[in-house]
């Protein structure tokens, strides 16, 4: 099977029309095979764009994309639990579990598992593939060594995030609200002011992380363009681009060309750097280094 490009779920709080138009644009123009749609970060955001989901799915499917419904990573109350059960009730869709509760609800039917479920080793991977998982997007801190071991003997297709800020932590507490001196229950949805996350610097003015509501992400953008060929050889099947407010059609085109050996990594990185602006790349996790590191080939 040739390498597949996927577009992860939008992790940020975009205006509903922006969110809808983004997916319409992806449907019409982006060279990606799979598109994940749905809320993984904060259940309070979903109601705003939920009315657009049917249109978005229809447009993506009409354009030949495989659509997978993403689900919430941290489920803490009855409302979130019931929403998950409702999502799972949609038997026509493949669903990405991002919490063990979703894995349990999806057992016995084909589903995928996202990077928020701790699948670190072959024992856990086998348990979930026995339960019906067909594809697993690995936790972000797993690198080459773990990938090789996991690929040895599994019926599942493995997916790796190759582009975009890394989801590093999730919390009950909303740091966006906290930064604005608000509480989560009355957050006024201030996270919508930062379409790629709110930048967090050290006291020495060094960019470090970004805050995305209850989620904390890397400031750097993961970029595994130089590692694509090695991962393809290893047997990784799906390469995930995590959406940002930049031109994701162009990002997808760059990764596709590198996958097809039609563009050098150097050329791709130069264009990518132009797209993301003055922000560092990282690929350290893949190489068993600090996640923030960018290891040159």
């Amino acid at each position, binding site marked *: 099977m040739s390498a597949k490009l996927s577009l992860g779920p939008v992790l940020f709080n975009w205006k509903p029309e922006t969110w809808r138009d983004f997916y319409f644009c992806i449907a019409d123009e982006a060279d990606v095979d799979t598109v994940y749609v749905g809320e993984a970060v904060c259940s309070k955001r979903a109601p705003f764009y939920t009315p657009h989901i049917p249109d978005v799915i229809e447009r993506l499917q009409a354009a030949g994309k495989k659509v997978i419904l993403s689900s919430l990573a941290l489920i803490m109350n009855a409302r979130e639990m019931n929403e998950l059960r409702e999502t799972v009730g949609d038997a026509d869709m493949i669903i990405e579990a991002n919490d063990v509760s979703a894995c349990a609800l999806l057992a016995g039917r084909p589903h995928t598992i996202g990077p928020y479920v701790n699948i670190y080793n072959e024992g856990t991977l086998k348990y979930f593939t026995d339960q019906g998982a067909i594809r697993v997007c690995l936790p972000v801190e797993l690198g080459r060594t773990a990938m090789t*071991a996991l690929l040895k003997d599994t019926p599942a297709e493995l997916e790796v995030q190759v582009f975009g800020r890394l989801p*590093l932590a999730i919390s009950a507490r909303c740091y966006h609200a906290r930064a604005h001196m608000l509480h989560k229950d009355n957050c006024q949805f201030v996270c919508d002011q930062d379409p790629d996350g709110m930048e967090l610097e050290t006291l020495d003015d060094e960019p470090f992380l970004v805050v995305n509501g209850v989620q*904390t992400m890397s400031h750097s953008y993961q970029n595994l363009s130089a590692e694509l060929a090695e991962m393809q050889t290893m047997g990784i099947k799906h390469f995930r681009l995590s959406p940002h407010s930049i031109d994701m059609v162009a990002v997808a085109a760059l990764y596709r060309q590198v996958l097809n050996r039609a563009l050098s990594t150097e050329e791709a990185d130069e264009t990518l750097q132009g797209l993301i602006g003055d922000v560092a790349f990282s690929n350290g996790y893949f190489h068993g280094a*600090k996640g923030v590191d960018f290891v040159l080939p």
Partner: protein
Amino acid sequence: MSNTLELVCPAGTPTSLHAAVENGADAVYLGFRDETNARNFPGLNFSRKELAEGLAFAHARDCQVFLAVNTFPEAGNPGPWRKAVDDAAALGVDCVILADIGMLDYAATHHPNLRRHLSVQASASNPDSINFYVDAFDVKRVVLPRVLSIPEIKALNRQIDVETEVFVFGGLCVMAEGRCQLSSYATGESPNINGVCSPAAHVRYEDEGDRMVSKLGDFTINAFAENEAAGYPTLCKGRFVTGGKTSYLFEEPTSLNAASMLPELAAAGVTALKIEGRQRGRAYVAQVVAAFRRAADAVHAGEAVGDLGLQAITEGQAKTSGAYNKSWR
């Protein structure tokens, strides 16, 4: 009168184990001296021989011993984790505290009679997750992640049929446990894989004359004026800048103290109280365990929980009740 709350206490070393047992622990929890547990710090934890001695000491005094095997085995190298569980069974520990699903599966299959608790590192925060662990691996107790408020814990306990254990004192993760990669992003070492967070080997203090800077990896985590005590640079307790404002955005350098909430936790159906602090010394463990013994006994007798007198040992740090109060979020 309410049910007695079981007191589960930290034992980073054999001396701390003795201190916990002698001061009224119902159970102590500990780990082997390697990456199989989430407090893989230099100078801590137990050899097999030390565990055997600790078991004899604790069991003779009617105290249980729980073994934490609560990191996530490295792909391709399950040996050390499986051996930890095998040895736990052979030595006769009262339960293993596990987080990884592969390990739960292994333990349930190979040691069905070895009691299993679900570690906080599994981050099981809702009834469907918890019921999954109970149904699939016959887990007898779940250590709840520190993301839930007391009303949520109460509601949760109504929907599950398994014991719950909650943290009441000590260090506080502000992120969902087991789902935080901040440490490995900055240092390459993580709680899930290496059993360490913000590890000391990556910490530096730089004296810049007018200020003392604490660093983790290459990142400044905090800076202190000459008259300020320089705290340890745990990543999520650092001072950072967002929107031009400097703050402890994630959390102040506080620690958890839920002593005043014990009656509510008991009423919420909690079985056991957990004290964090396997990295702490004998004196700390003795004092905290004794204080919570008094508190748990007071709750059992229906009496008020008085001031526990623990201010002196918590280094003047601020105290929080964390997520137990919903406004913390």
